[in-house]
């Protein structure tokens, strides 16, 4: 099925699980996953509600291509009001959970209310029930996954769950599925914990049927796979080196932030790069990178599976961490490495394992630690706050000790779990928070690369590269090269990336396909799978509609144009050296043009004519 046309509604307060039909009128306007679930959230949740209160809802949603033969068609998203930002949150994950949910016959699960006691949801095809999770509460995400599999004795069962950081109230806790894939950003795991929902276990045996035009779908998806295979990025670059190949690229062009974005350019970048991950190490002759890995239905296989050097101090006496597991992706390697000033590949691989094991967003975690390190070096916080840890940039041992302390809820964990905005405000240094709308930046400096700064500032879920990845154009030359330091044309570029991404995120596909696919490759796959008109034009308009709907949610939650901004550091502190020396973000030049390109007012509001044009 493209759409199964069925929603599972789980009322955690009442303990009920009910099936209801999918609103097909909305599906034709918002497609699925990110778009359609955001529509449900917008209609059912007061945007001003407490993100961690029972009035917030959490939706796990697939797209119409999830579970199909389309390449990368295994994605699902978690949509809710985010506790880190107070804005709409949508976190997208790969792995196999999304496809399994579709095989069980559901387009989405809407969780509402709050359970009195810890529970997990068990879905076996049409049957859904809540079970006690009191024995799981307090366990890591990995232990929870293991325990549920042991209980049900079904290796094909897929589990999405939270770890201890979510239970402890960390505002950037993730939902982990298939052990090391994550709906990672904005604290969707914290919302799950607030509902006393520990896990969702799914087994589906119904497969996929009801594709609108099966013959056309087979043809369109085959054509798409050929394009991915023949493209040098998706056919060779990503499977061989993964996203981590960017570490030296971004450092080389002068766009790699370091040490809480105090610096741009990291002298240790090469030691934590994809090239370093592939090198045999001295101790056992094996590289950090064990193999690449693919999510459901993916013909790219960019995922990294890694091992830490068994003689490294971080795992030396811990055999449970000496096996292979989900390895470093670029954003995590940056936040845990360059942003903390640490160039110890094994240490940050281990910390990344802990992020996966206990379910937290490594971008926000690393960036929050970086803010804490800067405050420590400035004498604002001391070992009294950190539990005795000398929290200095570049100290791998301190970082490992801090992370072990954090995941188990030890000293300083409540402070670090707030995220860098609240942390720096607490200690009177708000300018040291490198965030937009309260969410931490990923691995590209807006001073060195102008368009990505505009994207960060206007992202509906707070600072995020994956809302509109202009790096593709500004650095990688995909689909065409634009100049890093130009602001001309960046408003239109950001809008185009944001709208196209919203559509891809609503289809069930991975955004990495767009390194090779244009909308003319994507639209025919959706059009063949789904009833209705899914021409290129309609797909692009759907993406734009979704973007504007998210913006309306945020507006109703209290956000204004004043929240479309970057930290003072990025606007005023010029880059000190390297090819981008002297540059600051010129957001002020781009933002008015962006509002204009979107058909918004000069103060960032969506006027009636734009709403009408987009059927909002």
């Amino acid at each position, binding site marked *: 099925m493209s759409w199964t046309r069925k929603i599972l509604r789980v009322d955690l307060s009442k303990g009920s699980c009910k099936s209801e039909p999918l609103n097909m009128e909305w599906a034709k306007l918002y497609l699925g996953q990110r778009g359609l679930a955001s529509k449900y959230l917008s209609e059912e949740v007061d945007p001003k509600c407490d993100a961690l209160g029972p009035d917030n809802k959490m939706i796990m949603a697939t797209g119409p291509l999830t579970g199909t033969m389309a390449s990368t068609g295994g994605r699902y998203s978690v949509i809710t009001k985010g506790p880190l930002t107070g804005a709409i949150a949508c976190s997208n994950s790969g792995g196999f959970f999304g496809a399994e949910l579709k095989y069980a016959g559901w387009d989405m699960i809407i969780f509402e209310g709050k359970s009195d006691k810890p529970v997990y949801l068990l879905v076996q095809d049409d049957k859904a029930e809540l079970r006690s999770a009191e024995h799981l509460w307090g366990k890591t995400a990995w232990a929870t996954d293991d325990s549920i599999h042991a209980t049900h004795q079904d290796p094909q069962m897929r589990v999405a769950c939270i770890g201890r950081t979510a239970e402890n109230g960390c505002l950037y806790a993730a939902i982990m599925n298939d052990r090391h894939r994550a709906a990672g950003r904005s604290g969707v795991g914290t919302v799950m914990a607030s509902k006393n929902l520990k896990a969702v276990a799914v087994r589906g045996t119904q497969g996929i049927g009801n594709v609108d035009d099966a013959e056309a779908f087979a043809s369109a998806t085959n054509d798409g796979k050929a394009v991915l295979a023949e493209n*040098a990025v998706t056919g060779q*670059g990503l499977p061989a*080196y*993964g996203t981590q*190949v960017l570490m030296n690229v971004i450092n080389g062009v002068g766009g790699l932030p370091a040490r809480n974005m105090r610096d741009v350019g990291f002298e240790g970048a090469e030691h934590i790069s994809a090239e370093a991950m592939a090198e045999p190490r001295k101790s056992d002759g094996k590289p950090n990178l064990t193999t690449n890995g693919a999510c459901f239905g993916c013909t790219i296989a960019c995922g990294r599976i890694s091992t830490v050097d068994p003689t490294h101090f971080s795992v030396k006496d811990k055999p449970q961490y000496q096996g292979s597991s989900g390895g470093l992706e670029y954003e995590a390697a940056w936040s845990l490495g360059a942003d903390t000033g640490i160039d110890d590949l094994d240490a940050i691989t281990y910390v990344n394992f802990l992020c996966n094991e206990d379910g937290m967003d490594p971008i926000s975690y690393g960036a929050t630690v970086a803010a804490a390190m800067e405050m420590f070096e400035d004498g604002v916080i001391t070992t009294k706050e950190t539990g005795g840890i000398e929290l200095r940039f570049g100290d791998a041992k301190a970082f490992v000790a801090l992370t072990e302390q954090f995941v188990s809820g030890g000293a300083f964990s409540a402070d670090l779990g707030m995220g860098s905005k609240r942390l720096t405000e607490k200690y009177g240094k708000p300018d040291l928070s490198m965030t937009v709308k309260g969410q931490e930046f990923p691995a590209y400096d807006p001073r060195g690369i102008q368009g990505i700064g505009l994207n960060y500032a206007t992202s509906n879920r707070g600072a995020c590269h994956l809302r509109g990845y202009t790096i593709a154009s500004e650095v*990688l030359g*995909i689909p065409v090269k634009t*100049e890093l330091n130009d602001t001309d044309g960046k408003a239109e570029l950001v809008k185009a990336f944001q709208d196209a991404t919203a559509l891809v995120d609503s289809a069930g596909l991975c*955004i990495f396909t767009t390194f090779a696919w244009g909308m003319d490759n994507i639209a025919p796959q959706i059009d063949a799978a789904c009833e209705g008109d899914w021409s290129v034009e309609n797909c692009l308009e759907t993406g734009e509609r979704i973007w504007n709907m998210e913006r309306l949610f945020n507006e109703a939650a209290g956000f204004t144009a004043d929240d479309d901004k970057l930290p003072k550091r990025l606007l005023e502190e010029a880059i000190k050296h390297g*090819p981008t020396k002297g540059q600051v973000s010129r957001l002020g030049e781009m933002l008015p043009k962006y509002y204009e390109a979107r058909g918004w007012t000069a103060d960032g509001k969506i006027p009636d004519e734009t709403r009408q044009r987009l059927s909002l």
Partner: protein
Amino acid sequence: MNLNIEFYASLMKYLPPGKSRFRREVKVDDDITLSRLISQFHISEAEAHLVLVNGHFVNCGEDRAQRKLTEGDTVSIWPPVAGG
């Protein structure tokens, strides 16, 4: 004259023998252009996707053919790659 070359990812195989991970100092003709340097190391145009001279992009085609290199320049080259 002496130049610094950096070949990354799958282009590391084109580096002359040396100790550094992906960096070498090489001696080249004084009047060498960027495109001649690239072909001198047997890197095809399609492989030389991202090319920086001292951290600044140089587009393929005429720009690389015209670009004269000078003593001490650093030339960095990547094949088609992406991430995010």
